[in-house]
């Protein structure tokens, strides 16, 4: 009950936000909110593998960055009127979101499939270290692309258009992000309550029993990991639009760590919790950064205390319900 009220309240707040901010003459904050929603999408996608699948991925920054770079690079080539690939067949740049965003999701999804195929052969600490290492590999691969700015990153000259409709200004992109978050939450909730989700959760709780039941545990996990990577890539594409800039920083291990923090802060295994976690963490970072240059010295210990002494995250505070445990 409280859960429904909480979801409804957050939804109403997010839908009202553009109008309220417009009325308060603070419309620039909408861009900040869009960034929060993009991270919320990525955090919810990570929760799918982390909370429900029990796979602690320390490499989701790679998927976020890959999605951002795909969208950014396609826009870059469109503005320069040069092909992305000239041979054997020509692929040009594009500004059309209906092409670029699925492309971003597909690229990140394929990457997740490849990384997952190797990493999921292992468990526990191995898995954490290996996803971290592969994300670092992708980071260096992107650095090795001098035509896309290398360490300096790439300015994204324009925004995507949606079915020909340009996403100029802050509001259209905000709505796109909000719709994507809502869609993903609805689909993921349904999937986690369906056979796929039950099998995935069962495999987390007791792998041996799941295998004995004849469940294809490895393939289930790989499917969840790939889906999660693809959605994280989509979040990256939104970020590229929001910031008009993509940089290797998006692929760094710090970004992967931050996504993990968002999930835990919000409450793992709840899907809605990580959305709150993302909004809360980014807001806290902004506030602390305004306070002092050394804001990490506050955030670090605060995070430590949170991990040591609290259980269940924000979602539990709000709804009184723990995650999928």
């Amino acid at each position, binding site marked *: 009950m409280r859960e429904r009220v909480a979801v409804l309240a957050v939804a109403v707040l997010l839908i009202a936000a553009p109008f309220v901010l417009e009325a308060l003459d603070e419309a620039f904050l909408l861009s900040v909110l869009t960034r929060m929603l993009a991270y919320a999408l990525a955090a919810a996608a990570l929760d799918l593998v*982390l909370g429900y699948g029990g796979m*602690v991925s*320390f490499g989701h920054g790679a998927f976020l960055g890959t999605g951002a770079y795909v969208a950014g690079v396609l826009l870059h080539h469109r503005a320069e009127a040069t092909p992305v690939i000239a041979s054997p067949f020509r692929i040009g740049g594009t500004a059309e979101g209906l092409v670029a965003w699925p492309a971003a999701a597909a690229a990140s999804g394929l990457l997740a499939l490849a990384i997952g195929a*190797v*990493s999921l*052969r*292992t468990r*526990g*600490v*191995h898995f*954490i*270290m*290996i996803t*971290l*290492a*592969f994300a*670092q*590999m992708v980071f*260096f*691969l992107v*650095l*090795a*692309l*001098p035509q896309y700015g*290398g360490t300096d990153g790439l300015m994204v000259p324009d925004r995507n258009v949606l079915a020909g409709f340009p996403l100029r200004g802050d509001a259209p992109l905000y709505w796109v992000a909000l719709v994507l978050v809502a869609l993903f939450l609805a689909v993921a909730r349904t999937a986690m309550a369906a056979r796929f989700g039950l099998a995935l959760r069962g495999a987390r709780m007791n792998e041996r029993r799941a295998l004995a039941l004849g469940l294809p545990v490895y393939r289930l996990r790989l499917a969840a990991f790939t889906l999660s990577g693809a959605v994280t890539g989509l979040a990256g594409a939104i970020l590229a639009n929001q910031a008009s800039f993509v940089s290797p920083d998006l692929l760094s*291990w710090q970004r992967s*760590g931050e996504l*993990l*923090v968002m999930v*835990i802060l919000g409450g*793992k295994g709840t899907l809605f919790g990580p959305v709150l976690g993302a909004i809360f963490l980014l807001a806290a970072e902004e506030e602390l950064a305004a306070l002092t240059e*050394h804001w*990490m*010295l506050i*955030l*670090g*210990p605060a*995070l*430590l205390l949170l*991990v*040591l002494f609290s259980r269940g995250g924000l979602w539990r505070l709000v709804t009184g319900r723990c995650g999928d445990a």
Partner: protein
Amino acid sequence: MTALLLVEQTLNGLQFGVMLFMIAAGLTLIFGIMDVINLAHGSLYMAGAFVGATVTARTGSFGLGVLAGAAAGALLALVMELAVIRRLYARDHLDQVLATYALILTFNEGVKVLWGPAPIFLAAPPPLAGTVEVLPGVPYPAYRLVVIVVGLAAALFLGWLIGRTRLGMRIRAGTTNRETVEALGVDIGVLFALVFAIGGALAGLAGVMAGPVLAVQVGMGEQILILAFVVIVVGGLGSVRGAFAGALLVGLADTWARAFLPVLMRGLLPPAAADQVAANLGSVAVYLLMAVVLAVRPQGLFPRHA
């Protein structure tokens, strides 16, 4: 010319490898015995480098700096174990990752406050500043040779400690079955603290020794920590022997790839671009190595329960 380059780069690879070993050894022991993943292990390396560089600058003695760096690593490790890690033994790996991630943020910012954001300089001591002719016509920096010797000495010491002493016996027993060791009356709290201090001392030592070769700066710990993870995954979790083999393999692969890829790529790209591309592609080599090892042996080269 190529033979000269090969010798030089192989020595560089060995030097990098033994440094990786000094970090990976502590990490793998801590994991093996306490089942804890400690992301903040790189911070011990950073602390060693900063304290070592400061003490060297104040006293003018590199030897004192090395001692201070190792001591700083050990001390910080002890404090970390007593204050934070101790509470994480019963928790799952996710909590350990998050708590030690928070520690990294704190330590990195702390170093920025104390030493400022700019890299600080640590020179090799004057007697070691020159080169030595390792082979006829092949000069090599003396300091880097000393790093190799120190690293090998650390490996031998660790091998002796673990293979030949009572403490080592307990550590080995701890990696195999912690509950039994505890039931036999070993004070597991003291054992854990000791292992942490040993790991911290090695990381701190590696930090100071790295000072004159790499830059002493904020974030240095994480770059090498991730490579140390690769070492451990390649070598096999919990195995010091595996860490040694993995470290040399990763050190050589990384150095060779960075050194020889630019030579290969200069034919394909303009020189300046080739160097940048090749340097970053070279960094990818170790991860490919890891992927190959994992595909063949998911438990690493030296699995713990083999």
